[in-house]
């Protein structure tokens, strides 16, 4: 079960960095003896540094030096350099990095067409090398933002490459969508151009909106600073916290938000890394949550956002966790799944939670949710025994729900505002390979997607004709 994350662009690498940090912390908490085990091997290689850091992998026994299985790509050096000078410097080696100096100027075309073409060979070579070290590659992860140039453009270029080179391996993408007040003016262009690629080449997309992350961070800060709580909040349990950090205020503005996304990825992969009574692998997520190829956008929510210090967890609090998972406040995009239509839903529980707890809560919540007619009991469930650090249990919910529609509609509106006036188009069209048709095709692809969601909402997925059963001659 191996996954290979690609962090592309500034946002992607910042989130990626948080992810590796938290993953190490999570494995350290469970793996007291320092043995290199199956769980670790899904994300890290074990290398003997005496042979120069790029030695053959050590498959058993004690941990020597852990190297993340990853590719870090950025067309500016700032973020990657920081990672290499920070506490994670030994986790990556130079052969996993692809960097340039001047950045993509927040221009999708520069990222996709210019750098894509320029770095194609380099990326493919590094990809093949990294994949060689994996026994059995199950899926690729791309972490990027949609609004800029590198993450958005080069990130989706990499997506295409992955499909060409390894068509059998699942492609999961975590995409950070810009908010309406994003200070990058051309972010709607970049996002819509990237959306077309996601529509056509991704198996599964987990959209995340900065606005939602921001709201969650504020909510947590209010809770922590308000002093209303009688018990203290466990610092390391904050879904926004950095490893080992004691401060509640983060140093950099996006750190807390990036931590949330990193936690999303940790929870998503937990069942593939740790044991449980009902495992849920990544390829199962794609299988169960994507009933039609293009409808592969999943709304995620993480609960709880923090844990209180008292250890005993009465049932009520457990049930509260399930209720919260469906509340609008906990979704990572601006959406309200409860008032839209579910095509499918997955619940991955971590910690000391049993199948009866899971069933009780599904029974309780089901009546208030609207499921499509051909999938009335469309629940996919997973139970992983190991909880996240600082928590006794946690829940990740992934929903294929028409509530993503507003996000896409708004994106299209912002795009059209610029496109009608042909604002900034020349920056794109001057890049080799870019034509106006790229834009019209991209917005057309987005419109088609929106239309599919509209149709579902209108029909509630109900059958046009009553599907009568096959008759057997007696």
């Amino acid at each position, binding site marked *: *079960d*191996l996954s290979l994350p690609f962090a592309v662009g500034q946002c992607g690498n910042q989130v990626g960095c948080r992810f590796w940090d938290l993953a190490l912390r999570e494995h350290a908490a469970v793996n007291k003896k320092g043995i290199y085990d*199956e769980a670790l091997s899904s994300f890290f290689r074990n290398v003997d540094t005496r042979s120069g850091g790029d030695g053959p992998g050590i498959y058993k026994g004690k941990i020597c030096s852990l190297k993340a299985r990853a590719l870090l790509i950025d067309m500016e050096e700032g973020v990657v350099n920081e990672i290499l000078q920070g506490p994670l410097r030994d986790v990556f080696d130079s052969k996993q990095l692809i960097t340039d100096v001047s950045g993509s100027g927040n221009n999708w075309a520069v990222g996709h067409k210019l750098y894509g073409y320029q770095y194609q060979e380099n990326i493919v070579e590094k990809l093949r090398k990294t994949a060689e070290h994996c*026994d*059995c*590659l*199950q899926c690729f992860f791309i972490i990027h933002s949609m609004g800029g140039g590198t993450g958005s453009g080069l990130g989706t270029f990499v997506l295409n490459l992955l499909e060409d080179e390894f068509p059998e391996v699942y492609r999961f993408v975590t995409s950070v969508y810009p908010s309406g007040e994003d200070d990058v003016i051309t972010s709607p262009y970049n996002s819509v151009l990237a959306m077309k690629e996601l529509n056509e080449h991704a198996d599964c997309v987990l959209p995340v909106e900065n606005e939602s992350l921001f709201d969650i961070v504020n909510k947590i800060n209010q809770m922590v600073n308000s002093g209303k709580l009688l018990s203290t909040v466990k610092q390391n349990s904050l879904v926004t916290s950095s490893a080992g950090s004691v401060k509640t205020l983060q140093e950099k503005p996006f750190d807390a938000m990036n931590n949330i996304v990193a936690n999303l990825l940790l929870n998503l992969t937990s069942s593939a890394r740790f*044991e449980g*009574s*009902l*495992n849920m*692998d990544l*390829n*199962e997520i*794609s*299988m*169960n*949550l*994507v*009933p*039609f*190829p293009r409808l592969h956008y999943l709304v995620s929510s993480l609960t709880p956002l923090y844990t209180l210090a008292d250890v005993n967890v009465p049932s009520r609090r457990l049930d509260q966790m399930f209720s919260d998972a469906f509340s609008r406040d906990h979704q990572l995009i601006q959406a309200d799944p409860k008032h839209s239509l579910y*095509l*499918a839903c997955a619940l991955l529980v971590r910690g000391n939670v*049993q*199948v*009866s*707890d899971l*069933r009780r809560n*599904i*029974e309780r919540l*089901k009546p208030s949710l609207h499921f499509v*007619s*051909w*999938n009335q*009991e*469309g*629940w*996919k*469930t997973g*139970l992983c025994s190991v909880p996240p650090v600082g928590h006794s249990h946690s829940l990740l919910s992934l929903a294929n729900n028409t509530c993503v529609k507003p996000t896409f509609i708004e994106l299209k509106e912002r795009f059209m505002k610029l496109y009608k006036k042909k604002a900034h188009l020349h920056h794109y069209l001057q890049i080799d390979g870019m034509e106006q048709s790229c834009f019209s095709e991209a917005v057309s692809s987005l419109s088609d997607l929106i239309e599919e969601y509209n149709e579902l909402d209108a029909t509630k*997925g109900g*059958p046009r004709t009553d*599907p009568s*059963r*096959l*008759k*057997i001659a*007696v």
Partner: protein
Amino acid sequence: MSIVTVQLGQCGNQIGHEVFHCLCSDIHGTHGLCSSKENQSYQDACKERFFWEEESGVPVARAVLVDMEPKVISQTLSMAARSGCWKYSHQSHFCQKQGSGNNWANGYSVHGPRHKESIMDLVQKEAEKCDRLGGFVTIMSVAGGTGSGLGAFVTQCLRDAFPASFILNHVIWPYGTGEVIVQNYNCVLTLSHLYRSADALLVHENDVTHKICSQLMNIKHISFRDVNQVIAHELGSVFQPSHTAEGGPDYARNPLGDLMETLVPHPEFKMLGLRNIPHIPENSLPYSTFSWPGLIRHLRQMLIANAQMEEGIDWQVRPPPPGSCPPSSHSTKKPLHFNTSIANLVILRGKDVHSVDLGSFQDPSLYTSWLSPQDALNAWRTPRAFNKYEKSASLVSNSQFLLKPLDSVVGKAWNMFASKAYIHQYTRFGIEEEDFLDSFTTLEQVISSYTTL
């Protein structure tokens, strides 16, 4: 004769482990309520059937463990070894890394052919260790990708490689409110394929076992482990050594053969249901006593009224009076109150088994007319008590027990199929719409056959 167990997928391996654990714990228990000679005989028969011995004296399960990801097998092997009283052989497992993704097509069309040689190699080795091979039992769930898809493929391979051996599929049906969203598709594909290769299918439904845990065993926070332990107990009650009617003083040598012979007179009818009573929380066992007439009365009514457990039985349901037409219904929508049987096997274990009157189970109105009532009912009576229960009664039934659940699964799968949801996930690995239609047709035929009993 020995039975080789093939554990497939997470469910198959988790349950398989609980089964061997239950068997071992039963034979080492001191609650046999019989002479030490009888006890020794029981132990020896069980060991020969399910274990072989290595030099250290620790019994090794006659089992092949198969999974497409490593975590469960790894856990299963170490838990068994830790028990100290039995273990799995370290050479009897096959696993891969990437899993089947809950995709039946992936299990059947990709993993199956790819790993056929390695898996059948392991099976062959286990079969060769048996002095006399009595047949195979596979344990799998129908909901996922490995147990179901790869399990169906392996069953086919078993049939091809061992044409004369008995094959019983023990299948687990998932909770109705999803564990896996495509579970109904996987179930339809699995059952239709198993039907062609196996001699019989023995079914456990998670919803039923769960109810037993909550209402009878008083377990507050039911885990899969609890569910699996009940299933293991029920299987053990069937497969531990028994005396059959013709068997004489020795334990019957050919349990699978006997089972098939008594219960499956016609290849169109292979669905076997299992009921076992009583179920008591472990700490209440020493304080509970039951009477055989009471147990038999309950068991018979559970059969007639199609009850899932010994509580909440509908006592109003009665077999039709003699001389009237057998109740048949051509529409599956009509509620089937009375459960018609083709054949039944009652397995009694414990105190005073030989005095038990089973005449009520021979009532011809319970059965179709194909077999005489004497042939339709078989009884195995074993004085040696099972798993600390002073008296224990199991019913393996070829009847309409599973008709409603089967019809429900096929209905839901068909509903989803009509919208073509998820089909692209299967065609990606080579299972086409026609394959689905074939499977639906096979199962509608089975449903129709059981409906018109």
